[in-house]
């Protein structure tokens, strides 16, 4: 394989006529400059933009005033969808101290193939496209985002950033580097592979429900 590496790089060098280095100063400067391309503009507030785009992508939402409203919002959602009170919850600090109603089956772990409902916390929301960004880690197993039929996601309102570039800036500032998986999720899973007809719930969640939390203060 190293022969291939030499052969490929050799041909590239020949075509470009310069020497290959991973740390050429101008390349490092370009990579770490993080210059942004043209930024799409909109008139409405970021929160409104986020919710409008989320709805366009067939995502739903409930607004809660604070952390204390989580249980109520989840209860409402399960009732509205006629879902069992069995939820797989991300081991996230924001979801750790919740007192779930008597009789509910709530487990804090990664998702399994037969989980109906997953509940996680977004790293941030992106107003431009109504997207959620989730970062894999001990407190956010990626399988939760994809295996359950219903994916519930908590998003503190002050975590809505305007654009993807702002999400990258936030990520660099708060985390330094990318986790194993950075998921930008916009609405539920869908496919148009049968006669171009859009059908939700191809392999991933059939429904995406955002709990938009207005105050970040935890009870």
């Amino acid at each position, binding site marked *: 394989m190293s022969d291939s590496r030499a052969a490929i790089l050799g041909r590239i060098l020949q075509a470009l006529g310069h020497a290959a280095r991973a740390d050429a100063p101008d390349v490092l400067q370009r990579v770490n400059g993080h210059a942004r391309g043209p930024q799409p503009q909109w008139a409405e507030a970021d929160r409104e933009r986020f919710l409008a785009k989320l709805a366009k992508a067939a995502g739903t939402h409930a607004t809660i005033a604070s952390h204390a409203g989580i249980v109520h919002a989840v209860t409402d959602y399960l009732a509205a969808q006629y879902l069992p009170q069995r939820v797989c919850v991300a081991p996230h600090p924001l979801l750790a101290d919740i007192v779930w109603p008597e009789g509910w089956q709530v487990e804090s772990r990664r998702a399994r193939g037969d989980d109906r409902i997953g509940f996680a916390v977004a790293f941030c929301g992106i107003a431009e496209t109504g997207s959620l960004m989730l970062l894999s880690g001990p407190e956010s197993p990626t*399988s939760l985002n994809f295996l359950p039929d219903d994916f519930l996601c908590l998003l503190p309102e002050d975590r809505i950033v305007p654009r993807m570039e702002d999400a990258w800036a936030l990520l660099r500032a708060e985390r330094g580097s990318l986790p194993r998986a950075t998921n930008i999720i916009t609405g539920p*899973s869908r496919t148009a592979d049968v006669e171009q007809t859009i059908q939700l719930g191809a392999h991933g969640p059939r429904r995406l429900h955002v709990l938009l939390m207005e105050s970040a203060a935890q009870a």
Partner: protein
Amino acid sequence: MKPTSHAFSDNARRALNDATLQQALAKAGVGFVDKRRAALSELPEFDALREAGRAIKDHTLANLDHYLLRFEQQLVTSGGQLHWADTPDEACAAVLDICRKAGARMVAKGKSMVGEEIAVNDALEAAGLEVVETDLGEYIIQVAHEPPSHIIAPAVHKTRAQIARLFEDLHHQPGLTRPLETVPQIVDEARQVLREKFLAADVGITGANFLIAETGSTVIVTNEGNGDLSATLPRVHIVLASIEKVVPNLEDASVLLRLLARSATGQEITSYTTFFTGPRRRADADGPEQFHVVLVDNGRSRMLGGAFHEMLRCIRCGACLNHCPVYSAVGGHAYGWVYPGPMGAVLTPLMVGLDEGRPLPNASTLCGRCEEVCPMSIPLPKLLRELRRQEFARGLHPPRSRWALAAWAFFARRPQLYRWATRLGTRLLNRLSGGRGRFRSLPFAQAWTTARDLPAPQGDTFMAQWQRRKQP
């Protein structure tokens, strides 16, 4: 996959006479075009993004060695492994080697055009592994034993009824049938069958829309979530990527992502855009233990700096297919290999050879609609013409068209002789038409007159009449 591009004319004729295929194509074409148009109309910044996207690709290609090495360095730092593969055989060998070392039996695969290009499924199956395509479109064509007919909608040539019948034959025991008629029923059927495969697979293979030099990440863009399941549940994740996919940083990827989804499906962003960076971390609850990137060249480094350099900007959105009148008429299979439409008519001869791919660059009116809609402003007509130039230089044209062209050029280069010959010809044809103004058939023009009348010359040539007018 053994290419049949040389038989394009026959393939095309069959496709045109296939009523079911025509029904499927008619439905697909309009949808893609309208959705893209609507998406662009909502983004006034699209043209500026297009300019910026092109500049990003041009810059990266001009420094491709640097960015690939930076990507390698960052990938390794994050715990991933990079495998350079010059040829499809080397790429398949690398994938197979990883699977063997992992003791793998079953592979869950996300959609990858590079995977199609190197025919990785064939290689894995030949080695005794079970490979399951998990993108619904790819799954449909896998069980139908067909190649994809579109780079983003692989089963676009199949009707709902055909897919239902396929699934019924494959999944259902007699007496155990679930209803399979509507689109939701078909999608649910695939969801159930493939869910088990995701959970059982040892290795997940996905493609990559972009590689990020800054972070050593690979990016996939999907709607179904199958790529993410393939990359999350199995023990090993292998990414198949080609060398031109690298971009400098996350901001660059953000520009290109805005262009890609709109140009491909008319979405602002797909349901899932995922950046993978290395294998699972120590405290992670899930994710693969190994993360491999197989970096495929397959002729691309030879395109760099040459006549086809600009083709390396391609981000595989499929807009050129959707807007091509030839693709819309005959579908993707007629092109006879992995990549159809205008981008395929450029790439196929470069990857499988001009002898095999010869008809593809010729099967275009050079109408320029592909270049117009290409988010990377690739001058596809110019590249198709360049392939025709190479074909002509190598003497690959059929003798009859060569002679006709040579005879025409002989006259066109000699105005006096041309005047005389054309006068003779037009007057003769005019007389033959008997004042009817057109021919229903002409012995040497059957290609034209089979379905159209041929308008007859009005009489004498313009040049002759003009001469008379000037010198009475």
